[in-house]
């Protein structure tokens, strides 16, 4: 049970880091299907940074910077040039695929890099000894940060001026513009913030969980983070709940794989994806989806 909870807490980390940040972007009206690619970029540069300097923290920093640069490109095309956000996101995923696989084959494969320095678990004395939930207090720094970010997200979302602005910009950009909010500047900020945190989430996947990079290792978790925001009905608490549910599906998948159930383990591998599809199908009477989500703002 404790091992199961431990893996649940760990699997939720990349989803939380990415989805909590993406909530702001989505609320401000920019849909980013390229989260997958941003996480992949983060995963590669996390490993590269750690490989070059020996420190996973430098790796995480490099991951955040590179992922932010990539999302700057995305922001330029979707916000400044009003391109279709979904298609731009797909292009971003292709770009990230190309960049990561190429650099992996240039830097890591020839040097035969099997493992790099990764993040280590830091057990909090006392708390980590508590039965059952003690696993929560034995995580990497990024793990603690992810759960702390849920609170930060909630606070910024509801208790600060910028949170209010972000929430209103997605619902009525024209009105916000009239009262003097720079709609596009705000959207740039949310998209870049999403890029930074998605990069960190990717770095966690490669250096926090495995200490290595493999091609397309994010395997759909960017899309799952995207779905978590929709399933969480665009609120911080909802996103937290959604991430935990999706992580539960993944943890169950690993658990059932090990248990040798009569059902083939390939079906368990489908579980997280099927849970995501089912979650998207659960309809809500009142959706908090921003009214102008996915629509570029063109100042007239």
């Amino acid at each position, binding site marked *: 049970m404790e091992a199961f909870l431990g893996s649940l807490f760990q699997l939720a980390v990349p989803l939380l880091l990415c989805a909590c940040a993406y909530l702001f972007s989505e609320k401000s009206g920019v849909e980013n*299907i390229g989260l997958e690619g941003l996480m992949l970029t983060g995963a590669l540069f996390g490993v590269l940074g750690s490989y070059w300097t020996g420190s996973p923290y430098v790796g995480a920093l490099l991951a955040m910077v590179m992922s932010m640069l990539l999302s700057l*490109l995305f922001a330029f*095309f979707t916000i400044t*040039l*009003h*391109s*279709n956000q*979904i*298609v*731009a996101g*797909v*292009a*971003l*995923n*292709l*770009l*990230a*695929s*190309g*960049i990561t*696989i*190429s*650099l992996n*084959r*240039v830097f890591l494969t020839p040097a035969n890099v099997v493992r790099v320095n990764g993040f280590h678990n830091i057990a909090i004395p006392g708390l980590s000894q508590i039965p059952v939930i003690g696993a929560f207090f034995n995580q990497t720094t990024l793990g603690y940060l992810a759960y702390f970010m849920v609170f930060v997200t909630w606070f910024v979302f509801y208790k600060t001026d910028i949170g209010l602005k972000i929430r209103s910009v997605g619902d009525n950009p024209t009105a916000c513009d009239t009262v003097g909010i720079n709609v596009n500047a705000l959207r740039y900020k949310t998209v870049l913030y999403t890029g930074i945190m998605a990069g960190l989430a990717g770095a966690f996947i490669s250096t926090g969980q495995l200490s290595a990079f493999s091609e397309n290792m994010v*395997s*759909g978790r960017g*899309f799952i983070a*995207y*779905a978590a925001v*929709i399933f969480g009905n665009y609120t911080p608490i909802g996103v937290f709940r959604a991430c935990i549910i999706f992580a539960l599906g993944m943890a169950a998948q690993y658990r059932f794989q090990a248990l040798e159930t009569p059902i*083939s383990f*390939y*079906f368990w*591998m*489908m579980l997280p*994806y*099927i849970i*995501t*599809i089912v979650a*998207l*199908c*659960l*309809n809500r009477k009142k959706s908090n989806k921003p009214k102008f989500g996915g629509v570029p703002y063109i100042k*007239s």
Partner: protein
Amino acid sequence: MNEVKTKNSMAFIKALNGVRDPAFALITAIVIVAIIIAAMGYNPLNAYRALFTSSVSSLGGWGETLQKSTLLIFTALSFAVAKKCGMINLGASGQLYMGGIAGMLVATTFEGLFSPIHIILVLLAGIAAGAVFGAIVALLKNLFGASEVVTSMMLNYVGQYFCTYLISGPMRGPGTDLAQSAPSLESARLPMLISGTRLHAGLLIAIAAIILYYFFMERTTRGYQMKVVGMNPSAGAYAGMKIKTNQLIAMAIAGGLAGLGGAIQATVINVRLTIDWAGNYGFDGLAVAFVGGMAPIGIAIASVLFGILLSGADKMQMLAGVPSSVIYLFQGIVILIIIGRELFDKFDIKTLREKHKAKIQNEKNLSAEKIIILNDASDRIPGKFVPSEAEKAAANANYAAKQISAAKAVVTKLLADKEVYEKAAADGDEGSMIMAKLAARQADDITKAAERMISERAAYEKTAIQKGGEA
């Protein structure tokens, strides 16, 4: 005579404009990727030379190129059909897997069946499996409102793991420990077009699919409805089209096309189902569809161009050492440039002039609005004020007058719109035809409503005079 000439030159300019963006995108992408290759420490010229000589300089090279193009055509058409109806189908990969599985099931059974019949059964099985997998996406959207972008992407993983499950269990080939199926029977494989190459008769089917796509979209009512639903769902609904049915059919066709491609690829080229056999083909088609502008001829040309890239990429990795994955970079850059078209329009003098005009017009409209608001304010008299019957009737008449003038303005605008649409329709843009009809219909409705208002206004004015006289 002169008219024909201008019309021809108009068509030529239009075609030129259609080519301008993709050509510019391709050239820019080639340059950017060359810079990236150089930055990675390789010689871009060597890389491109290796890529092109291996894919186009020999008969064998062309065979491999066109073989790749065949699958690209199916996945590109799959994306294009859905896109025309307003759906983003990211699930071509999963649909390929399902089509491949179904085709392979048929291709490994029915030994001794008459070959043409066997092949047709394989193809039909692929289409059916892909269509079902595609339709699921539309059904989830129609019934539960689940975003097709995410569900189609998630189903890719489901399809992939389902295939891996089958080939490591129920469909594992006899006498092998590897996760792979039995080879497809000879009688189930499409014949080769040129011996010594892997170019097979699937190319002819792909060309037929392009032609069918053209006729379906341009010459049938269903295709026409899909385009309207994709361009303007509310206009489609207004004209009595069923949005959900059209989207369901579009996704089923999209899935069917990808499934057909998957069945052909699996039985003829791969021969056995293996782990991850569909690779990135699902997303390759997306770039082809964008470069081809979703148009039949565009997709045909783009599929050959990307066929060259794909078939040459492996050689480039072998000869020049450049990772073949730079192809993904190329695809991403091409798509971004094509959808970022506004970047180039911004520097277009014509658009700048139009924007200036629109700005002036907008300012005029704003000042007109202000006048109306001022009138409104003078109507509102502060303090407790109980209007008499006459005053009420007068106010009503006043209100009706305002409504009538507003309606007139809307009608004038609609009629202007209608003219613009009709002009576009005369140039052969069919979508504009229905927009023109809709505008005319709306203008009609509003004119009728305005006429009603006019008679009401007259009645109110009459009452106002009467009551005023009584008081």
